């Protein structure tokens, strides 16, 4: 069991909606920290992909978010708590190919409806909770093989 006490490293970052210039910087930072700690490349990669997709969803669909990054030797947890429009039907949003992206967003190469499915695929545990008009919480957990 990984309890609160085992969290040896905890950092927070913020993401701003529509800020495409800095988009992806949180996942890059998290990735380089995990690399330096010495987690296996596969673990680093999965966390990086899942975090990147979740971060991009905040940039595209929400106003702002706080990202909490927690590391223990056994697991990495990334929690994105955003303020924004929220998701009405999470099950639908999780479906491959489902997207509400505008044409403008699609032109930038997003909107394939692959983000959430990709997060699911790359994480060992995923929790998505949301309240329409308030915001969304995405909690990604990746286990590190011992």
């Amino acid at each position: 069991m990984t309890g609160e006490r085992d969290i040896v490293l905890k950092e927070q970052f913020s993401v701003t909606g529509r800020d495409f210039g800095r988009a992806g910087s949180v996942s890059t930072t998290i990735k380089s920290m995990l690399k330096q700690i010495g987690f296996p490349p596969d673990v680093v990669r999965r966390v990086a992909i899942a975090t990147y997709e979740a971060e991009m969803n905040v940039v595209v669909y929400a106003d702002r978010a706080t990202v909490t990054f927690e590391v223990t030797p056994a697991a990495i947890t990334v929690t994105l708590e955003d303020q924004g429009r929220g998701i009405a039907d999470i099950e639908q949003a999780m479906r491959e190919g489902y997207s509400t992206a505008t044409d403008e967003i699609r032109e930038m190469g997003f909107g394939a409806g692959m983000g959430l499915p990709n997060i699911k695929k790359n994480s060992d545990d995923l929790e998505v909770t949301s309240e329409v008009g308030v915001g969304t919480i995405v909690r990604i957990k990746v286990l590190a093989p011992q």
Partner: protein
Amino acid sequence: MATYKYYHAHEVNQEACHGRMKCLRACPTDAIRVKDGKAHFISELCVDCGECITACPHGAFVPLADTLEGTPRKGKLRVAIPSPVLYSQFPSEVSPRRILRGLLQIGFDHVFDVAKACDWATLATRSYLKEHTGRWPIISSFCPAVVRLIQVKYPELTENVLPLQVPREMTAREAKRKLARENGISESEVEAVYITSCPAKVVSIRQPAEGTKSALDTAIAISEIYPALREAVSEPDSKIKDELFDDITYGPGWSSLGAITGLLETKRWIAVSGMSDVTKLLDDIENSKLRNVEFIEAAACLGGCIGGSLAVENVYVARSRTIRLAQKFGHNIARHEHRAERLYRSGFFSIESPIAPRALSPLDPDIARAIAKVKERDEIYASLPKIDCGACGSPTCMAFAEDVVKGYAELSACVVGAARAAH
């Protein structure tokens, strides 16, 4: 002299180093530290890009290519394999044929042009891209500094590196096989000498990224043989026609950025050069931003290999000549198509073992302690001025915080922080 974990093509001449710190900022992997006023580099972080060689105003970073005189012959025959860059170092009236002939005049027993192998490699790359079903984009492998950068900073992207032989290696193998057969000697009696603008290739010959043996034996800088060659090619020469230099095509060039990509039958390619732009692009690939791109041609030197630090001609002049040479000689892709396809199927172009990430020492071998050290590093970093002045001898405040945690530096070396604390 310092001993390094990996082989490198340059060393620091401590006497020439004035501690000017120019190299500190130039190094794309933050490998350099200045201690007691003298520069050093961390071997496992160095990717042999040569940026420090170019950046140092005092020439303290000394390239270590072999010299023609200083290298004893390694066999019965010495064959020159010039990089196509060599042709761009001479005025247009000096033809590639004349230059190849000049190499014989200055003491090589044979010359082999890489043009044919360039055509083959282009075709092999084309076939590979058509069949590839894994992760995109595929990244070119001809630049050893880029391959090492990927091994060091982007371990996950090693899978994206094109797993095919590069033209220089193919040419060396062919030259050895052919000359050994024709002269009734063993292949090891044929010494293949690469003539190059590239310090990184000197390293890749001694220590290939794939961990296998290079077919090239020696690498000599263009700048080293240039004076003698220049003199040789200035004499009129009637023998050129007697020599068999029939396969000069120059087409894809491979020496100037963007040359190969145009022939790959994909529209989704990007050609990038210069370490800082290459790094930015690799960051994007790593963040899966370039989902639609199929091929990346990446060269560490600005403008491609014509910008290599061992070239003699200005890179823009060389580029203009490269374009003119390509117009004049064209490529011969169509002629090789059939044979290249057969060779591709037979696995002729495949590299023996895949490119693997370079194992870097973690902050601590124990994950729990490594996490604690990252935390400590971030706390130290938070207390620093974050202006990356370099006065401490580390390239950035972050690198300095890490050096302190690793025990390489003392916190008191931060003069700005100390001055601030005194107020």
